[in-house]
């Protein structure tokens, strides 16, 4: 059932909010503002509160979330988001704090930030952590800034290259470029991991850092990670860990112990804060001691005054790269991550990684006869990348078709066409919170689709069949760009 745009529901004179009354003298606007700065037209919709509630309720019903079903979107760690966290994040003592309140009025909040920093430091095996980044890519960018600051301070002015494997998330090269670096891409080895020879070829005194995702985007652990880090360090570069896949490592291994100098966390992925249709996420960056001075301001610190512990925001960090967020990052997201870590504890966190790995391998084991596995390692970590190249060759059914067909079985599709180095990639990350029953249903659907691709490829190519819209004309979306509701503006002034 079609849901109109809210603008189409608009009727002059309606209002959907019960606003405060005017209880002060009624100054005319012209007494307060220059006439030429007062706007005459405000083309917003006019609808009732019921209209609003219905519209967004109905729109929500045209959306799919973890709460509705299985969502194996690879690299995104779509695990169950505990509802109790929403209750905590809406407590007035957190939700209604103004960031510029005096420190003595926010000791609870600062203490949570400080404690979470320490938790992440421990989980990463690093020495210090900041929660300033608003999301993972923001953390990457911060890491690039710190990398530059580190080298510049050492007088290493020539280091302008960031080495990145071709399997990396697009954010890696984008973040490097955003900070003015030149990106040197290296091809993955035949095992899907970094090939030491390829790495050696590009390393030089121009190398500022290597950005490495571990486990990588193929769901494979970089077995030679220690050697890799050593090689980069040998030429004077830093090694950065993209922590998007930390769900596979919790309590099992720590980037700090592998030789990484700096890493980011995606709080929303690893520590299960709701992804909200694309955000807000929460980032964090953990560093070794030699990078600590460069962390962005403010840094949350603890001081002991007599018997009391006092938390404060430290801006006196002369070597800091500066400020990267309006205030202190996504506090309410960090709060949920904090609650998650407290709930699970050290044993629970390790179980997360173990079961995430188990679930991925289970899917892999039961589907490997039916689809090609991208790189044929004996096992994978928390996700498995399949390839539909067999299906494409045999019947022209592509990864996209398989994805769309999965919708008809009630599942959200995996990530497709990523990593870019895998043809017809289907990147499946089941996460630890899914049950064997759900995986069995998903596996059965995937096998059924593989059958359909043989028997009735058209069925798959024309999927999905049960969604509110069928496949959309993406080319038209670009060519006839329609990114706002024009009639709203056409009416202007009338």
């Amino acid at each position, binding site marked *: 059932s079609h849901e109109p*745009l809210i*603008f189409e529901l608009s009727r002059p004179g309606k209002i959907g909010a019960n*606003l*405060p009354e005017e209880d002060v003298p009624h100054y005319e606007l012209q007494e*307060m503002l220059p006439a030429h*700065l007062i*706007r005459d037209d405000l083309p*917003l*919709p006019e609808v009732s509160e019921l209209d609003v509630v219905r519209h967004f309720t109905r729109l*929500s*019903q045209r959306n799919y979330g*973890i709460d509705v079903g299985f969502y194996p979107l690879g690299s995104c760690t779509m695990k169950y988001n505990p509802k*109790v966290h929403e209750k905590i994040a809406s407590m007035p*003592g957190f939700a209604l704090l*103004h960031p510029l*309140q005096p420190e003595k009025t926010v000791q*609870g909040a600062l203490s949570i930030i400080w404690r979470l920093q320490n938790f992440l430091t421990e*989980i990463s095996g690093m020495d210090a952590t900041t929660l300033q980044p608003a999301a993972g890519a923001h953390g990457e960018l911060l890491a690039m800034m710190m990398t530059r600051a580190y080298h510049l301070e050492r007088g290493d002015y020539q280091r302008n290259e960031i080495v990145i494997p071709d399997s990396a*998330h697009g954010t890696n090269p984008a*973040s*490097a*470029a955003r900070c*003015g670096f030149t990106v040197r891409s290296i091809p993955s080895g035949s095992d899907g991991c970094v090939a030491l020879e390829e790495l050696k070829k590009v390393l030089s005194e121009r190398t500022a850092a290597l950005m490495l995702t571990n486990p990588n985007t193929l769901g494979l652990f970089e077995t030679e990670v220690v050697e890799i880090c050593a090689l980069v360090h040998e030429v004077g570069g830093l090694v950065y860990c993209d922590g998007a896949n930390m769900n*596979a490592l*919790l309590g099992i291994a720590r980037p700090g112990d*592998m030789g990484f100098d700096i890493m980011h966390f995606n709080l929303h992925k690893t520590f299960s804060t709701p*992804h*909200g*249709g*694309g955000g807000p996420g929460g980032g964090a960056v953990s560093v070794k001691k030699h990078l600590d001075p460069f962390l962005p301001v403010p840094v949350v610190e603890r001081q002991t005054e007599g018997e009391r512990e006092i938390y404060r925001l430290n801006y006196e960090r002369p070597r800091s790269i*500066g*400020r990267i*967020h*309006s205030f202190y*990052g996504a*506090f*309410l*997201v960090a709060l949920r991550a904090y*609650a998650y870590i407290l*709930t*699970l*504890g*050290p*044993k*629970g966190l390790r*179980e997360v990684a173990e*079961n995430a790995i*188990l679930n991925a*391998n*289970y899917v892999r084991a039961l589907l490997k006869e039916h689809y090609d596995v991208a790189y044929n390692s004996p096992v994978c*970590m928390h996700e498995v990348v399949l390839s539909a190249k067999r299906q494409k060759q045999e019947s022209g059914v592509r990864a996209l078709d398989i994805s769309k067909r999965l*919708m008809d079985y009630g599942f959200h599709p995996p990530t497709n066409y990523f990593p870019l180095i895998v043809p017809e990639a289907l990147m499946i990350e089941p996460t630890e919170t899914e049950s*064997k029953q759900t995986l069995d249903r998903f596996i059965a659907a995937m096998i059924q689709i593989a059958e359909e691709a043989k028997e009735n490829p058209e069925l798959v190519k024309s999927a999905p069949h049960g969604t509110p*819209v*069928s496949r*959309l004309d993406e080319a038209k*979306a670009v060519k006839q760009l329609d*990114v*706002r509701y024009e009639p709203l*503006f056409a009416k202007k002034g009338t």
Partner: protein
Amino acid sequence: MSYISNTDNERKEMLAAIGVDRIEDLFAPVPEAVRLKRLLNLPGPSDELALLRHCEKMAALNKDISSSLSFLGAGIYDHFRPAIIEVLVERGEFLTSYTPYQPEMSQGMLQVLYEYQTLICALTGMDIANASMYDGATALAEAAMMTTDITNRDEVVVLSTVHPHYRQVLQTYLHWAQFVYKEVAPNLEAISAALSERTACVVLQQPDFLGYVASDIANTIEIVHAVGALAVTIVDPISLGILCTPADVGADIAVGEGQGLGISPGYGGPLLGFFACRKEYTRYLPGRIVGATTDQLGRRGYTMTLRTREQDIRREKATSNICTNQTLLALAATIYLCALGKNGLRKVAELVIRKAHYAREALCSIPDITDPFPGRPFFKEFVIQLPIPAQDVCDKLLEKGIMGGLPLQPYYPELGNALLVCVTETKTREQIDRYAETLQSVVTEMTAYAK
């Protein structure tokens, strides 16, 4: 509780299906040398009730703006948030979804974002808006970086009346990417003097950090354009209920913080950066954009579009590195703007400006308190000059349950004992009066003591 649903038995069945004995066999590729041989040194586990009690205890260590009377603003505002917002935003289908890569299963959120983009265009007068940025400060930084791309120039000129934190973030972004950051006083001569053929853009804020509205902003933008640079303005979306748009005054890019649009202060995050510009710069836009198109049966539908600007497609050549953004908060802002609508947003803006003016009169009629910028038009924030250090006064006010505003000494030492006061529609006349009375008694007492 680790929220893992499989039982030991099921795990055994799964291991058997995989063909290994133990879960440890599955992470064989992790070298022994880097394996953690102990449990992480962390607290927990905790049961749900104990967690709630702990968090309540931590929350009780804070003093929030519902239990105090707060006149803090400076970028984060206590605007009224209709109850429907939280109810709708927390619906699981929205809350637990992710980036709508698969439009057929994400029409709900895609349509929301299309509506959001439309609303941001409606507010700002711009032609195109993206689907959200991290916050106002990074939206500004992205805008400035975007102008360096567009103009192929490397200097950014910023007025000193821009929010200090925004200036700091901008400086961080520019500095490490090896661009030039230049700060100037907010007057035509200073701005003119700073402009050159290297100027990519000039950054202005309207109302500015101190709450004041620049009457001559259009003139300023004209001289910016005259050197081939672009004008980036930071705007308060609530003020756009009555103020003319950035487009009206000639700006090329409009950014700002959307927190006031129905989002909790949340100790400063997560926030909602909004970003809009003129259509000629469409292909330089950072972030996600949702467009309308049709499906195979000709039905209207929504999808992410202009994707080749983005990092996951274009990698190092992308217009930005942003990936996860603030969709859920864009949803909140959309609900807010729809619920208030044309009449409601104007009403709120009018309430705000009237209450702020009432408050300024009340505060400035206190003996020893003066208005440092008399006659300068303002919206919801204004500066008052105290006879004693503003921080000391605020400390005293806090004891009486009032957060009096932001002492400006750390940001603008030249302003002396200045205090930045913010008044929104959530403050009643009685509360404003109470503030004025308390401030008067505090100032009287403290000045007497100082003498």
